[in-house]
């Protein structure tokens, strides 16, 4: 073992072979180089000449140098030099302690890389290795530690992942002590930087074995933990405050962490900053978001952190709060507008999960707010149920009613006077009273007071000292409209009017919605009463060590409902979502972590360095051999050259070979070169000349009919209008592009099958981009082969079911189709009299219908044979009707080509009248 700077030799005695170099040099020197052969015509003149110095021809010095360095390289390579070898006790056993808890997750890649480099070096020297991980491994019995081969440890290290729970160094130390390694052994501890009580003990124990090196991250600022979070009552909406912690250390610098709220799909919903002051380890971040946005939040994460503790999962308690509405009608809202729970239900539906039922039923589930809309008194068993709920943070909203006369039950915020108060009744002089501005200290502060809210009847509170503090809303005359009282964590809120418009117009007003929402925001959400949960909650999704939600492995067992409040997070119960069905409980790692303290003090003779100090050992042998081989090849070629043997490989031939290889590569990848831009020639044809098109139905006679009909129509168009078109095209929506065609004719046959997904996609694209399709589904007797008109209609329905068909309307008399070229009273084909449907006022296509549906068999009326004679009789009016059908065809094409500008003609009479005046 010998070291030269960063290079260490495994077999240094081989280097003694370098001593033969002078010998080689001498040998090379005395051996003349091989003579170069040269044909020379004037050799006669040379005969008899002898050079003066016999041994004058020598190997050139540079060639000798090259050969010597080649030999040197080989000798050095055989000595197996290694670069950056760790200066360590090479032959001694190695004890590696790795922190793989949540705190290590953020720096896991570098930690693992350092670990792998360390073990690779151990493999090279076949050192026995103990690899101890401090976080409890996956559930199951921990195998006792013992010295194993380094390559086994390397395999374990490569597969090692950070865990989503804390480390347990105490038990790791215990296991190490059980292994009882015999000194001397070198120890390396890859720590996560979070202190524990066992640190000093462990370091001391490891030092007793031999040298201890502690590797820690020098770059990362330390792990950040999120949680616990709580909902802060705030009149402005939904505020969530989350505690953010970092390792405590005197030298902590000010730092800003970004906390991001994500929705179900992982999109950023909101963003907040957590400001750590110098030296502090705990701060908080506030999310102030509207309720609707707040309802979307599913987790909070720390930006640029990837540990289980940097994720705070939000469950149902944080999002849509469940509201129960107790209505007089136990069956819920049966008759709208009259039912007393109706208005509150309508107000809260967009913002909360609204449930209806009796108090007993409602309290079986977890509710944030209960509204007693009926105004009835609460019976004492119900009070017994409600009070614990209120203590846990429930919000109870009560409305007055005819039976709420005086202090009928204890769940009232203020003392009420017996008998109500009525304004503006038949027998009264007073007028109904409006609302006053909301007091500044009320949750309703800032809401605009509408002047159309008039209260005609109310219940009155007994005047008392605390009444004004408890009043959240007043009438103009100062009497309370809404009063509230705190009961432990919960609230009781009383509206002094009914929940129906009987007593006031408040339930009809928008301010009622805002008021209920403000109260809803007030509710913190109620902790799930553990009693309503199932006994065992299985894991739905768990957090991986990097803070990703993953499917739980089978080792994760169901958690007992009693353990939810303070779970023992570990391989058995990793953080994540638990529950099944409707229940989804988030169990977070952050709140369960005790104080986080940065590791600071180490015993004096412990080496503490960063992960990067474990540089990758690099064996130089292959490189040296490679260079030696290269030198050998160069030397060989030079000797060839010196002997006058030059390889016959002209540059031109090399160039040609390169070119042909390049060509081969080009040919081998034809998709890159040619395939990409190939355009269907049919599309080019269609784009170059405007033409009509029809959908190929698959039935020979019908396709021929369509072709003949559109062909004849094309001729008529060319003769009568300026629309000169090319021969109609037949297209298959499955494979062909539709977009070049202004109008597509689709004759529906009884056998027509609905278009495939791809075809439907093509057609929908075409329609959506301004295309027009004429569906012709004649169901008259004689229009189809077997008189199966019914089937034609059915086939049409099947086709339309696959397409994006806009709302249709029977074509009005004034539609542009009636006047785009000819003025037409109706739109006959071979038949007439059946309704024609068009789109009802399309917005995207400027009112031009993308679909025309009829059953007049237009193509049959238009069709002519090669001699120009009509093929099918038009019924009932014969040739006159055929002429009208051509006129319809002309109008149709004009409509497709020019759109609805002829619709302006409806204004023509008015314009003419104005012009003539």
């Amino acid at each position, binding site marked *: 073992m010998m070291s030269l700077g960063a290079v260490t030799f495994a077999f240094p005695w081989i280097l003694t072979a370098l001593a033969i170099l002078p010998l080689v040099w001498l040998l090379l020197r005395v051996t003349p180089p*091989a003579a170069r*052969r040269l044909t020379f015509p*004037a*050799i006669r003149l040379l005969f008899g*000449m002898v*050079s*003066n110095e*016999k041994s004058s021809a020598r190997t050139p010095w540079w060639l000798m140098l090259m050969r010597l360095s080649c030999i040197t390289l080989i000798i050095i390579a055989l000595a197996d030099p290694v670069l950056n070898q760790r200066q360590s006790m090479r032959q001694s056993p190695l004890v590696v302690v790795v922190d793989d808890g949540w705190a290590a997750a953020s720096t896991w890649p570098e930690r693992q890389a350092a670990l792998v480099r360390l073990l690779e070096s151990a493999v090279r020297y076949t050192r026995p290795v103990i690899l101890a991980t401090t976080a409890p491994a996956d559930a199951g019995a921990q195998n006792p530690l013992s010295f194993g081969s380094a390559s086994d440890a390397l395999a374990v290290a490569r597969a090692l992942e950070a865990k989503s729970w804390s480390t347990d160094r105490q038990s790791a130390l215990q296991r190490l002590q059980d292994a009882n390694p015999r000194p001397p052994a070198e120890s390396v501890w890859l720590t996560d930087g979070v202190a524990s009580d066992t640190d000093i003990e462990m370091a001391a124990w490891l030092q007793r074995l031999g040298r201890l090196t502690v590797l820690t991250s020098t770059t990362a600022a330390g792990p950040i933990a999120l949680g616990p979070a709580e909902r802060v009552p705030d009149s402005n909406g939904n505020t969530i405050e989350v505690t953010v912690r970092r390792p405590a250390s005197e030298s902590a610098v000010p730092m800003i962490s970004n906390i991001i709220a994500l929705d179900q799909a992982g999109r950023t919903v909101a963003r907040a900053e957590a400001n750590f002051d110098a030296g502090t380890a705990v701060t908080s971040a506030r999310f102030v978001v509207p309720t609707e946005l707040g309802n979307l939040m599913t987790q909070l994460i720390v930006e640029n952190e990837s540990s289980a503790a940097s994720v705070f999962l939000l469950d149902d308690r944080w999002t849509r709060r469940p509201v129960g509405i107790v209505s007089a009608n136990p069956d819920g809202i049966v008759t709208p507008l009259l039912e007393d729970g109706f208005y509150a239900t309508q107000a809260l539906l967009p913002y909360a999960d609204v449930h209806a039922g009796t108090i007993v039923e409602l309290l079986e589930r977890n509710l944030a707010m209960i509204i007693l809309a009926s105004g009835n008194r609460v019976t004492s068993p119900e009070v017994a149920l409600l009070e614990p709920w209120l203590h846990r943070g429930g919000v109870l909203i009560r409305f007055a009613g005819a039976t709420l006369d005086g202090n009928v039950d204890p769940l009232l915020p203020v003392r009420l006077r017996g008998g109500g108060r009525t304004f503006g009744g038949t027998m009264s002089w007073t007028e109904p009273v409006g609302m006053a501005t909301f007091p500044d200290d009320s949750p309703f502060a800032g809401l605009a007071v509408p002047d159309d809210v008039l209260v005609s009847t109310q219940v009155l509170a007994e005047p008392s000292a605390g009444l004004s503090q408890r009043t959240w809303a007043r009438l103009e005359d100062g009497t309370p409209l809404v009063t509230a009282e705190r009961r432990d964590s919960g609230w009781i809120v009383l509206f002094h009017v009914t929940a129906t418009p009987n007593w006031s117009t408040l339930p009809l007003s928008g301010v009622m919605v805002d008021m209920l929402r403000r109260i809803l925001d007030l509710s913190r959400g109620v902790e799930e009463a553990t009693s309503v949960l199932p006994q065992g909650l299985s894991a739905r999704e768990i957090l991986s060590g990097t803070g990703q939600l993953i499917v739980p492995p089978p080792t994760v067992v169901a958690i007992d409902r009693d353990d939810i409040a303070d779970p023992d997070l570990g391989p058995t119960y990793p953080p994540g979502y638990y529950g099944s069905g409707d229940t989804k409980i988030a169990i977070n790692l952050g709140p369960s972590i005790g104080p986080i303290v940065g590791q600071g003090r180490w015993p004096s003779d412990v080496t503490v360095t960063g992960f990067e100090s474990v540089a990758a050992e690099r064996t130089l042998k292959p490189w040296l051999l490679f260079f030696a081989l290269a030198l050998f090849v160069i030397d060989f070629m030079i000797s060839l050259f010196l002997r006058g043997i030059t390889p016959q490989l002209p540059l031109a031939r090399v160039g040609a070979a390169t070119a042909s290889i390049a060509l081969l590569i080009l040919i081998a990848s034809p998709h890159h070169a040619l395939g990409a831009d190939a355009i269907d020639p049919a599309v080019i044809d269609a784009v170059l000349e405007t033409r009509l098109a029809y959908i190929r139905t698959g039935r020979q006679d019908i396709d021929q009919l369509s072709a003949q009909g559109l062909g004849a129509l094309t001729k008529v168009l060319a003769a009568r209008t300026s629309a000169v078109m090319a021969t109609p095209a037949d297209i298959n929506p499955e494979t062909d592009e539709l977009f070049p065609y202004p109008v597509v004719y689709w004759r529906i046959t009884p056998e027509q099958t609905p278009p495939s997904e791809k075809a439907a996609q093509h057609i929908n694209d075409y329609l959506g981009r301004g295309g027009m399709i004429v569906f012709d589904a004649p169901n008259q007797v004689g229009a189809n082969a077997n008189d199966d008109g019914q089937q034609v209609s059915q086939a049409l329905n099947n086709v339309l079911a696959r397409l994006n068909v806009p709302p249709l309307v029977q074509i009005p008399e004034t539609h542009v189709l009636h006047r785009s070229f000819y003025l037409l009273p109706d739109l006959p084909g071979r038949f007439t009299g059946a309704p024609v449907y068009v789109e009802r006022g399309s917005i995207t296509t400027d009112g031009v219908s993308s679909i025309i549906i009829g059953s007049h068999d237009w193509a049959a009326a238009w069709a002519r044979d090669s001699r120009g004679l009509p093929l099918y009789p038009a019924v009932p009016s014969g040739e006159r009707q055929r002429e009208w059908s051509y006129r319809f065809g002309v109008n149709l094409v004009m409509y497709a080509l020019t759109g609805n500008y002829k619709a302006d003609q409806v204004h023509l009479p008015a314009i003419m009248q104005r012009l003539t005046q």
Partner: protein
Amino acid sequence: MTSSAQVLQHNAEQAASTLPPLLINANRVAATVSLGSHGRRRAGPGDTFWQFRQYSQSDPAYMIDWRQSAKFDHVFVREREWDASQTAALWCDCSPSMAFRSSKKVPTKSERASVIGLALASLMISGGERVRLLGFEPSASSGRLALIQMAHNLERAITDQPASTVPVAQASLPRHISVVLISDFLFPIEEAESALSSFTGQASSGHLLQILDPAEESLPYRGRIRFQGMENEGSLLIERTEDVRKDYIGKMAEHRASLAALTDRLGWSFSVHHTDKPPHTALAALHMRMAEER
């Protein structure tokens, strides 16, 4: 004709095209140039006007120049100059040793020799002279067809690389020919002497053009080299080539001096051309010397 022969001919004609049409004894009148032959500077058969002389009894009547006679009291006869074309015998060495070139930047010696020889032939034939290619079957000796045949023969000779044999005079050759020998003349001087002497009876003049590769001139090699002859001379190992360079250059100069002495004795010309130089200079010099001779 093979395409390479075409190429060779094309190259040769291109080299020739930069010179005025070569005519032996070019100090004759320009009109004879168009005929392609040169007069004998005495009256005889030919097309070119030579002189008027007074009619004598022996002259046929058709020779009287009536226009001239009308100007004077005497009757004059128009005499024309006696035209005659000359034959040149050309030899381009295509032996294996001529197939040498020291680098790819220069042509082989036999290529260069053929180009110069053929260019000379092209100039001469376009001037109406006759050219015979020594070492081949006698064939057409004037006209474009002869040029084409010569290119063909030379092309084949470059490929076949016949053994180096210095041509000797043949009975079939006409008298008073010009002999042009193009070779590296690296064979023993005795061989050259005997060959050249055989021409003395027949040739009125002779020209030697020695074609050498620059490497043959300077021996630019270094180090331990095993030299290999190209015509079965055997091989030779030299430990340090740079040491013998000086001797080699001296020996080459000696060889050349003896060649020059030989040609001087015969009254022939001798010049050296290196393949790294353009062929025009050698061709022009050769042409000059051929034109100067009478």
